[in-house]
């Protein structure tokens, strides 16, 4: 009998194993998103009062996501998984452009460039994993319906530097927020589905 990799049964990754990897990845993506935001803010945001303007400008705010523990615990896990998938999909396009547009920022440090590329790549990888998890958990077909269109490309290419830098700031602020939501929801789902809410 061929030997399956340790831990797997009939040579298939368990849901628990898939969730472990998804959570490790979402943790890493949010860690990177926080770092790139702080680095950008430190270098380009000082004294420009971006924080007060970056209010409700996220392209994903149309997706009603849980805002506290109670809401997150009351929502059915299939709906929460669908939301996570929707938020991830909504970031495919902006992350692709972020990775290329950030290279046009004056003296953008390598650490910001590299992180933008890494986040885009890892986000795609997490999306692949989430589609696999949802496929396992979802009774019905995985619809592509939950998704939020991003129309921010022009703002990343504006001539006026202040407006363009604010557009980057806002995108990174939203990325930090949404990646934290995804990380938090996945940790919650993992405890609920794999550890019977007893992590």
């Amino acid at each position, binding site marked *: 009998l061929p030997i399956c990799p340790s831990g797997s049964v009939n040579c298939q990754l368990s849901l628990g194993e898939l969730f472990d990897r998804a959570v490790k990845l979402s943790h890493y993506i949010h*860690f990177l998103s926080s770092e790139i935001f702080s680095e950008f803010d430190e270098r380009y945001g000082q004294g420009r009062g971006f924080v007060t303007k970056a*209010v409700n400008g996220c392209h994903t705010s149309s997706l009603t996501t849980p805002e*506290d523990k109670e809401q997150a615990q009351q929502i059915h896990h299939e709906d929460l998984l669908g939301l996570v998938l929707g938020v991830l999909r909504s970031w495919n396009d902006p992350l692709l452009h972020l990775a290329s547009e950030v290279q046009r920022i004056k003296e953008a440090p390598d650490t910001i460039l590299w992180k933008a590329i890494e986040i885009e790549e890892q986000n795609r990888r997490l999306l692949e994993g989430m589609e696999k998890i949802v496929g396992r958990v979802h009774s019905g077909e995985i619809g592509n319906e939950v998704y939020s269109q991003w129309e921010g490309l022009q703002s990343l290419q504006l001539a006026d530097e202040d407006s363009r830098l604010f557009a980057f700031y806002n995108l990174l602020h939203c990325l930090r927020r949404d990646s934290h939501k995804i990380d938090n929801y996945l*940790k919650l789902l993992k*405890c609920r589905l794999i550890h019977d809410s007893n992590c």
Partner: protein
Amino acid sequence: GQSPPEKPTIIKCRSPEKETFTCWWKPGSDGGHPTNYTLLYSKEGEEQVYECPDYRTEGPNSCYFDKKHTSFWTIYNITVKATNEMGSNVSDPHYVDVTYIVQPDPPVNVTLELKKPVNRKPYLFLTWSPPPLADVRSGWLTLEYELRLKPEEGEEWETIFVGQQTQYKMFSLNPGRKYIVQIHCKPDHHGSWSEWSSEKYIQIPTDFRV
């Protein structure tokens, strides 16, 4: 002097378990008149302005937001207005996303035990529990821990980050010395370290050959 009160300053906002939060302010001079304080806040993307839901639970010059009034991943714009007979003055706005102000209570039930396994190195086995308020079971809050120890009469603490574990095996200890051990914790991404847990002492026996 007879004048409107000085504008107050919001000095701190803290959430102990990522479910509720409290803000405190420091009054300015009261302009020689009885002065009262009103905390007002609005939430990102909403015009509506609300007043503090509870001025009492956390003591003077504070506002406590219970679960129902606490939302994450949204920015609160908070101000405090001081008013007396002569007029009023408003603090600078204080922007808060509760995600970033979580400071847990210290870990509890810290235990230290000397272990001498047969034909293997002896070690000090530490265990602890998350602060009672923190719901780590559901996965809503994930805590990371750091422990520090030093010989009783020593100067310098040795600090060790242990991630999300709630136990640790300590090998490199000097036989015959008495050590002090403390642990603190922090949410896995944002927020600040708790205070250190109360000091625990352990005497390492002289034959505890490491």
